[in-house]
């Protein structure tokens, strides 16, 4: 009986050692200030751009970047709570509000691409070749054609809501208007499956295009510009924010080398650039 008990205790000891062995390296991510939380949009992750840039940044600076890819809205919410150090987002109106309320510092333009309206090749609302984006949205509403919205407060969702507003249409609650609540990649897949229209950033669309079968039906309108900014979270509001890391990251994003990579990223694979570098340029508005 005693021996049995000893056996159990021995086993428990082995288990405990095993646990500690695992837990330790997991905790040993270095000193706290080496960690940098980057809250960003799904498009920068889904397009693969960050997979190229982040390892470069880590190697160069020694920071360990925790990339949390969510919508721009959620990224800014994380910044507001001091739960992120630096943001890479594309929702200009919300960003300005974020800055005005004092949550951010150093909002700097990084790059742009553009939004496109894509939809089923049959184009039931006949938006192809139309004169403007607003007209395209009006036609989709008038025809009652299925439109898939991100519905997740992301930069793309904010842009889409802005266009509906400008077109004087309230799509919420309409039968033809559905919200996925998912990232750009997944929403494109849903739109492809349900043969719906949607607004997408060109980068994500290009990287998914092969499986989608959803052509571009409207592009090249000034309202469709998609601008990415880097914003540091204000350390005066949240003392735990890694301000040095945020500064280093924004310097890195705007450096000549990084901007050069942004410029050529995806050209070989997709036959066209996914993003256009903008460091140092004036704001588009």
């Amino acid at each position, binding site marked *: 009986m005693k021996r*049995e008990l000893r056996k159990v205790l021995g086993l428990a000891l082995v288990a405990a050692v095993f646990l500690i062995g695992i837990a330790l390296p*997991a*905790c040993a991510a270095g000193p706290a200030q080496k*960690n940098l939380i980057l809250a960003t949009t799904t498009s920068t992750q889904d397009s*693969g751009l960050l997979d190229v840039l982040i390892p470069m940044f880590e190697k160069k600076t020694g920071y360990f970047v925790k*990339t*949390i890819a969510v919508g721009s809205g959620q990224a800014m919410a994380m910044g507001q709570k*001091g739960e992120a150090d630096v943001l890479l987002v594309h929702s200009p109106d919300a960003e300005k509000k974020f800055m005005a309320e004092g949550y951010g510092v150093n909002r700097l333009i990084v790059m742009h691409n553009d939004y496109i309206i894509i939809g089923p090749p049959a184009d039931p609302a006949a938006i192809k070749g139309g004169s403007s984006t607003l007209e395209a949205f009006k036609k989709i509403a008038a025809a009652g054609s299925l439109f898939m919205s991100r519905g997740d407060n992301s930069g793309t969702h904010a842009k889409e809501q802005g266009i509906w507003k400008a077109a004087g249409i309230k799509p919420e609650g309409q039968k033809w208007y559905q919200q996925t609540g998912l990232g750009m990649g997944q929403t494109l*897949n849903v739109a492809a499956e349900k043969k719906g229209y949607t607004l997408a950033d060109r980068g994500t669309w290009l990287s998914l295009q092969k499986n989608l079968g959803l052509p571009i039906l409207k592009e090249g309108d000034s309202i469709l510009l998609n601008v990415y900014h880097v914003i540091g979270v204000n350390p005066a509001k949240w003392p735990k924010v890694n301000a040095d890391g945020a500064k280093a990251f924004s310097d890195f994003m705007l450096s000549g080398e990084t901007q050069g990579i942004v410029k050529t990223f995806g050209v070989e694979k997709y036959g066209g650039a996914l993003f256009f570098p903008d460091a140092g340029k004036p704001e588009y508005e």
Partner: protein
Amino acid sequence: MDLILEGLRKAFYLIFTLDREVLGITLLSLQVSGTATLISLFIGISVGTAVALSKFPGRQLVVSLINTGMGLPPVVVGLFVTIFLWRNGPLGFLEILYTPTAIILAQAVIATPIVTGITLASIQNLPANLRLQILALGATRVQMVWLLVKEARLPLLAAVMAGFGGIISEVGASIMVGGNIRGYSRVLTTATVMETGRGNFDVAIALSVILMLLAFIVNAILTQIQQRERPR
């Protein structure tokens, strides 16, 4: 159909070429969920046995709570663990949000009620006279508890399988508290979600195949142990 075949081909390719990234993701999944299962076993078997063998006011309520906990939605666990672990949250000083440790914590929270519930049921299912018999033979209380747990070892292995199976396949909490950080806190399920979002369905299918293989192997080993000696 082509896509599935291509996914399977990709899976075998990734497994047999020992793709570094996939190997890392697989090992991390195993480590994280294995550790979480061990923690849940430790707590679950202790609490389950204690509740099964004792009588106290409100016991019915506790048992109901444990049984409800067996169906605890992982996203709810993920949300609360995230809020607690925020830098400015109650446990922020631990600085473990977006680390594998955070995933272990969340998964242990999910698995513990499962293990507790099954332990409770299996200890209670032992013949009532067994306790008296053991005590009558002069065993101490500790020895009695140990013998009972030993007697219930077969259903307890089912608890291990249910707990491990529940968390290795879980994605909601892992992505929220782990952040799906490449080469650091990316596990099989979160990687599958991401690759699906990226439209890399072949890789997503490959990861799913690896996940299922892993679950199968672990369960096969446990079943082997469980079935080696049939209950008398």
